[in-house]
């Protein structure tokens, strides 16, 4: 039988253990310590840093310090940064989505190179961290920030495939990052003790750097009108967009939004929920195909707002937005014209308007 002293010891130790610090970023901190010691040792011997970090069977070679203190082969890629699989990414990336996101309070967008990564808190055995605290050397602040460095909470640098140990990003990776400064109290395992932090958006709003996208971000941040397809606000299957295929729609128009109603189509017998289409009225400037009259009310597949992973929403179009809309006549009698997503409804620009004119002649 356990005597009182032994019982007291168990209770005391258990109580102390419950107050132990959180192990957030333990692996990253440990590796930082290992690397730091290696750098100090190697620098003293040769004046160069040539430490080899072996992680999970792969080797990352660190080149000489100087103009570039990053690994010779920093992880890189094209387009959307992988990860964030826990988020609903059905909405995808577009410059219009970025423009909408940057209207949020605390939004930021930058071009930067990763200089340090600290993994987030341990959410339990077998479960990956949700966040890594990533330090960037900032080349350009497009929106909402200043200074030469910033720490951003991103999804961890996951391994990109089962056949490779290459991480989605690492020290030296150049990224275009957009996100929002938000309270950390909403995130239980954020690897920071600050009250607020820079949270990077997922779902394509953080991307590998390329010149074209960087120029696009600069244009968006400069307040230029959004261009391209309406951001996809729901998962949908549809034919890939091309201007030529607009000619195969039932209707196509150039119009300005004058009113947005509620979800137009209520449940039918046997349906469990409404289809969620929004009733949107347009002042029509041009009918390219399939209609007449100065105004029309369409049923839009794409919502006029974009849900964000953080639980909020941003407007994607509203009264005054000029759109090029094409779509089909509903197969259900009385449901009118459906403005399709998937690229078949786009922000107006002269070049696309000319393409639609040509496609529907």
């Amino acid at each position, binding site marked *: 039988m356990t005597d009182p*002293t*032994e019982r*007291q*010891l*168990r*209770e*005391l*130790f*258990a*109580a*102390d*253990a419950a*107050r*132990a*610090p959180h*192990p957030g970023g*333990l*692996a990253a*901190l*440990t*590796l930082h*310590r*290992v690397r730091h*010691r290696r750098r100090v040792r190697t620098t003293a011997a040769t004046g160069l840093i040539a430490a080899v970090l*072996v*992680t*999970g069977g792969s080797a990352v070679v660190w080149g000489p310090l100087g103009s570039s203190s990053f690994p010779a082969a920093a992880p890189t890629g094209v387009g959307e940064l992988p990860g964030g699989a826990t988020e609903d990414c059905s909405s995808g990336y577009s410059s219009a989505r970025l423009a909408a996101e940057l209207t949020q309070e605390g939004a930021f967008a930058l071009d930067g190179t990763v200089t340090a990564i600290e*993994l987030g808190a*341990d959410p339990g*055995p*077998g*479960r*990956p*961290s949700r966040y890594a605290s990533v330090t960037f050397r900032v080349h350009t602040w497009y929106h909402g920030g200043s200074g030469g460095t910033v720490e951003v909470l991103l999804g961890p640098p996951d391994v990109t495939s089962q056949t490779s140990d290459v991480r989605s990003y690492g020290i030296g990776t150049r990224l275009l990052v957009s996100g929002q400064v938000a309270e950390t109290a909403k995130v239980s395992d954020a690897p920071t003790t600050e009250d607020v932090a820079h949270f990077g958006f997922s779902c394509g709003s953080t991307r590998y750097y390329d010149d074209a996208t960087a120029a696009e971000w600069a244009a968006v941040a400069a307040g230029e009108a959004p261009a391209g397809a309406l951001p996809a606000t729901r998962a949908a299957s549809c034919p890939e967009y091309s201007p030529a295929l607009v000619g195969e729609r039932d209707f196509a128009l150039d119009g300005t939004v004058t009113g947005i109603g509620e979800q137009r189509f209520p449940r039918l017998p046997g349906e469990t929920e409404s289809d969620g289409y929004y009733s949107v009225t347009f002042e029509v400037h041009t009918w390219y195909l399939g209609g007449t009259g100065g105004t029309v009310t369409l049923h839009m597949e794409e919502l006029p707002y974009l849900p964000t992973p953080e639980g909020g929403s941003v407007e994607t179009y509203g009264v005054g937005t000029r759109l090029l809309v094409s779509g089909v006549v509903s197969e259900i009698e009385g449901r009118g014209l459906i403005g399709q997503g998937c690229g078949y409804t786009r922000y107006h620009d002269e070049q696309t308007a000319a393409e639609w004119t040509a496609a529907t002649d």
Partner: protein
Amino acid sequence: MTFEEFVAAQGRPLLRLAFVLTGDRHLAEDLTQTALADAYRHWRKVRAAADPAAYVRRMLVNAHLSWRRRRSSTERPAELVDASIDPAAGPGDALEAREQMRTLLAGLAPRARTVLVLRYYADLDDAAIAEAMGVSQSAVRATASRALAGLRSTAVVEAVQEAP
């Protein structure tokens, strides 16, 4: 198993053990990182061990005892009690008894306190404690026995002294 996977699974229990051993969150973090850094440097050996967690725990315990030896000339027992430990965490008598026990533990030799932590917090048997500390099982039993006897007798003496 990668190093990161190991830390994801064992980082928390190691940090908790370090905190119970040191009573100081900064020391605990430093101690845990030291042990894990050693594990990282010898990762092949750790991964190949029959029980990698026990292997790293031994590294942590050894580092702790090594630190204690180096710091013993300047450290006061009171420093073992971390300011972050909430004194209002328990009801009156139990809290008082717990604080008394904490004080008594702080007065024990580092090896004796470590044996008690491994036995009553980590729930290790004498063989595992001996393995973690690099001593014989009989040494573990003797150390634990003396430590417990010391705690009991001191507690009794203090209780008598405090009696009206």
